[in-house]
């Protein structure tokens, strides 16, 4: 009967968010609801996201899916929604508030920690590594960076993280930045790129500098990254389940709107994949182009 | 008589130019001291040194016998020195009153401005000058004549004991000049000293007490205005005799019509203007400021829109909606306001001179023929005696008169059939004026047609084969040129208001 769910995400131009959207549309299809999907240009635009949430509320949706750039900032609007009886489902990363009925998210810290383990394996537990992160202040940016750094600090005393640089997920900026890092640290053993744009930037930078013996661990997927892994330029990457996130979010939102009961923690999981496992159906299902 | 200003041995150099070498000037209380010299002689520079805008390289300035070196307009004002600059320096987005009182606004508490009081004071000032102007009008919307009057009002409002006027009348017409002279005489009476720069020789006799002549930045001499014949002063300025032979009006009845204008109309500014212009003819446009001469010229040239009217070039009805069309049709227009409409002042002499002619200096591939440009420019620079260190000097660094010469030059270079000159000799010295008159006569001798707009009646009468007189946007009459027409005839038509309109139309 024309139920409509509004999703306010952290972005929409990047492949990851496109994948989330496709998952959401899949669910909408199945459950016969209409959805809208919006997100700001980058993950610093906290207030832009608030305005989007406000506009979404104006349309009186049956439910709202919300990937908070900053939970605190959104609380007043979430309260308005709550009072208006509009159920809210958090996705991608949690909202520290009791208003959202459920959270469909990846545990970024754990995922980045896994990346650290793999990195350590490849470089034999000692050496120098660097991190090319996509954002210095956004929640995902911080969690992935710290997840990686803390794991290294905790378990691999012989590995030194020489620098963390931020390329805003812009392939070109990340490329230049990687090249500068390599110039400054000729003896670098590995680099971790914390999202698709950063990871591809690292691959470009490394190949332009003509370094072979360097371990690159990426994050998320996308055609370029998958190619890099197949060709061996990239050792492997962490993937979340963006399609799953979108799907579960809409599903939960609709059920909530229809007054059905839903579980509050939906861990959509993450996997490490490399040239060998990339075509394994379980993995292939969560990768996007 | 006590001297209030003494400038001795002043030197001032600019990159590539020694503007002043050992220049000197002496001003007494209650005197009007004329400062004369060719374009680029250094008059404005000397005055800018006096008013603290340029720092002199050498020499001494004594104000009321005390050696001073004013730095910046502020200190000059403190010393009682006021100056009206040759180039208008007004804030176009501010009102007349706001311009006049900038920096001296009547204030209320907390830095609030008392606009009412300011406008009142401005109104009084204007009244004293017989100037009919709304103090609240935006200066940018005024003609340069009105803007010039505002500059004068501003300078007067300081009531400085030493007042410098650098070509104040260049943009003014006779009526306004008369008003200005009344004011100057009042100042004299109050014992103020006035340094007066002008290229209009007739003004010397009318107000100047003494005249100091400069040439090439050097002091030539100081003479009594009344005793000394103008010819001698000119000789001292130019270093040679300038003699102009009387005008001979040729019989043009046989010549084909080059331009015919029928019923041009736009609002109140242009009302049913019709006239024709024959090849080889100089048609003078006379009228008071605001008569609409410039408006008509701009309209013919396609610079401003028209509501009605027809323009025939060489007998062909021609649709002119932009200057581009006009120039294609062989019409050239020299604008009256060089800074706003005439020059790209950040570009060099050559670039400006060839601006209307570029295609002539361009290969089929769009590449400029630099050598040809330089040659053509150098020729024009010599022809018009433009004083510039190089044809690649930026125009803004030239003296006012030399800038004006470039505007003339760029149209002379463009070989049009019909030239419209709007105040072509504004700020140009007598020597050069004679040159330009000759050039205009050469043009007509070569069968070109010329419309000559000038607020200097003598100039109009000196050149025109016929004189078209305008008033309030209407053509009030067309008089024959030469001896039989007197200034009075022109003025009667120029002041012929609405009432006696009908007989004006059929005089042609």
């Amino acid at each position, binding site marked *: 009967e024309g139920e409509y769910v509004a999703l306010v995400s952290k972005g929409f131009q990047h492949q990851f968010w496109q994948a989330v959207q496709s998952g959401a549309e899949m669910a909408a299809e199945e459950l016969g609801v209409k959805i809208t999907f919006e997100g700001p240009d980058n993950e610093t635009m906290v207030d832009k996201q608030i305005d989007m949430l406000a506009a979404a509320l104006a*349309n009186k949706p049956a439910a709202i899916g919300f990937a908070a750039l900053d939970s605190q900032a959104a609380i007043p609007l979430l309260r308005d929604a709550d009072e208006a009886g509009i159920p809210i489902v958090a996705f991608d990363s949690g909202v520290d508030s009791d208003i959202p009925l459920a959270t469909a998210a990846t545990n970024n810290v754990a995922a980045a920690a896994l990346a650290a383990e793999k990195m350590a394996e490849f470089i034999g537990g000692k050496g120098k590594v660097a991190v090319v992160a996509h954002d*210095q202040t956004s929640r995902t940016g911080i969690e992935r960076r710290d997840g990686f750094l803390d794991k290294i600090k905790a378990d691999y005393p012989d590995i030194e993280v020489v620098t963390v640089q931020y390329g805003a997920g812009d392939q070109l900026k990340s490329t230049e930045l990687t090249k500068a890092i390599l110039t400054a640290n000729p003896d670098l053993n590995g680099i971790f790129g914390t999202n698709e744009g950063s990871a591809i930037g690292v691959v470009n930078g490394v190949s332009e500098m003509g370094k072979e013996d360097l371990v690159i661990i990426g994050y998320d997927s996308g055609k370029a990254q998958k190619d890099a892994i197949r060709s061996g330029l990239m050792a492997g990457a962490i993937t979340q389940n963006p399609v799953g996130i979108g799907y579960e979010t809409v599903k939960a939102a609709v059920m909530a709107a229809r007054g059905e009961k839903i579980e509050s923690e939906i861990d959509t999981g993450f996997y490490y994949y490399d040239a060998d496992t990339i075509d394994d159906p379980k993995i292939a299902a969560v990768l996007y182009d | 008589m006590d001297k209030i200003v003494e400038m001795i041995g002043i030197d001032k150099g600019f990159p590539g130019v020694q503007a002043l070498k050992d220049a000197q000037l002496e001003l007494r209380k209650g005197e009007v001291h004329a400062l004369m010299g060719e374009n680029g002689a250094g008059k404005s520079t000397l005055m800018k040194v006096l008013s603290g805008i340029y720092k002199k390289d050498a020499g001494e300035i004594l104000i009321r016998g005390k050696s001073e070196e004013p730095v910046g307009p502020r200190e000059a004002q403190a010393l009682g020195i006021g100056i009206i600059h040759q180039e208008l320096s*007004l804030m176009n987005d501010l009102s007349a009153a706001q311009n006049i009182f900038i920096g001296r606004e009547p204030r209320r508490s907390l830095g609030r401005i008392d606009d009412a009081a300011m406008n009142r004071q401005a109104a009084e000032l204007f009244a004293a000058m017989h100037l009919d102007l709304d103090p609240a009008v935006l200066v940018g919307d005024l003609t340069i004549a009105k803007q010039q009057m505002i500059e004068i009002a501003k300078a007067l409002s300081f009531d400085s004991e030493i007042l410098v006027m650098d070509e104040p009348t260049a943009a003014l017409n006779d009526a306004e000049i008369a008003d200005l002279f009344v004011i100057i005489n009042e100042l004299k009476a109050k014992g103020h000293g006035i340094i007066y720069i002008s290229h209009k020789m007739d003004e010397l006799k009318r107000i100047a007490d003494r005249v100091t002549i400069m040439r090439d930045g050097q002091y030539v001499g100081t003479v009594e205005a009344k005793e000394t014949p103008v010819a001698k002063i000119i000789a001292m300025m130019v270093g040679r005799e300038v003699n102009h032979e009387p005008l001979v009006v040729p019989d043009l009845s046989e010549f084909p019509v080059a331009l015919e204008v029928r019923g041009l109309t736009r609002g109140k500014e242009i009302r049913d203007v019709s006239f024709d212009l024959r090849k080889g003819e100089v048609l003078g446009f006379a009228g008071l400021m605001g008569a609409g001469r410039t408006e008509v010229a701009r309209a013919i040239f396609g610079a401003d829109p028209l509501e009605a009217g027809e323009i025939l070039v060489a007998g062909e009805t021609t649709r002119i909606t932009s200057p581009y069309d006009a120039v294609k049709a062989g019409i050239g227009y020299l604008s009256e306001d060089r800074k706003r409409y005439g020059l790209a002042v950040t570009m060099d002499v050559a670039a400006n001179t060839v601006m209307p002619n570029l295609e002539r200096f361009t290969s089929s591939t769009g590449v400029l023929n630099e050598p040809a440009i330089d040659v053509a420019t150098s020729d024009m620079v010599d022809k018009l005696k433009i004083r510039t260190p190089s044809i690649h000097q930026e125009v803004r660094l030239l003296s006012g008169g030399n800038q004006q010469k470039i505007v003339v030059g760029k149209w002379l270079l463009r070989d049009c059939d019909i030239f419209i000159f709007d105040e072509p000799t504004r700020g140009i010295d007598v020597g050069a004026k004679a040159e330009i008159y000759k050039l205009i006569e050469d043009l007509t001798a070569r069968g070109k047609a010329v419309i000559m707009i000038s607020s200097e009646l003598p100039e109009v009468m000196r050149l025109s084969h016929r004189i078209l007189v305008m008033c309030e946007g209407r053509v009030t009459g067309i008089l024959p040129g030469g001896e039989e027409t007197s200034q009075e005839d022109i003025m009667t038509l120029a002041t012929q208001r609405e009432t006696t309109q009908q007989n004006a139309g059929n005089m042609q």
Partner: protein
Amino acid sequence: MTASVDVKKEGGFLAGLIKSGAHQKLLAFASLIMLLIGFSLGSPNFMQMSNMIAILQATSVIGVLAIGVTLIIITGGIDLSIGTMMTFCAVISGVFLTYWGLPLPIGVLAGIGAGAFCGFCSGTFVAKMKIPPFIATLGMMLILKGLSLVISGTRPIYFNDTPGFSEISRGSLIENIIPGLPIPNGVLILFLVAIGTAYVLSKTVLGRYTYALGSNEEAVRLSGVNADRWKIAIYTFAGSICGVAGVLIASRLNSAQPALGLGYELEAIAAVVIGGTSLAGGRGTILGTLIGALIMSVLTNGLRVMSVAQEWQTVATGAIIILAVYADMSRKK
């Protein structure tokens, strides 16, 4: 006479808001009205009290920024640093209130003061060191962006310990007076800032020199005015207005987001130019800027409420901006 005069120029109070271009402003206003009508027809949800308030709320921060930069633009300058300056001020308030636990008013003043100080720096670079405004403020933009991250430790600073703070923009004094009209204080502040600045522009020496400098700086100098000092004063004043914007956004987000701010300068400047202020300087009005800012936020909100696909929203915004200004132009002729 004065009366007739006032309306013509920046005098007379309401006229002050409107200034010389009464006529023109009215036209930009027309574009705004047309947008409102268009969207109301486009979506039934658009014309709701709650959404209108959301639009005003969304305008408040950008609006205040735009008012600040209007001053700079009228002087013939430009300020690229306003976005990050706003953030910097928010961070400073955060430091005072949350890190140092000082009382609310001091924190607010600190934020505004920080803005004034930044403005003073830019002003000095431009007026005294003769650095082109574009470069000077580009430099400030980067410096302040960096400093915000350094000072905040690249972490948002939350104001939970200062409950009153979020009321600054979220609370609604108006509702207490007129129940059922929950216009947030942020909007109230926007209009107060607008009226105050319009007053300064039209009635005070500072305002007069703002226009004069933009119109012909050389002439101002030749008139013996200490142009440099006044220019610095104007930049400082504009900076303090950015400070207000900083406090507003911090209170709206109940946190100082150190990475936010970049890109706001463009939005603000766009609002100013759409409002009919010329980048050449000398002309401009606060009312115009307000309308410009409203046009922008009505546009974004309207397209969202009509659930236009986001990529098409961008296209439409661009096209409508051009059309709106063009309509203005041609109407003016």
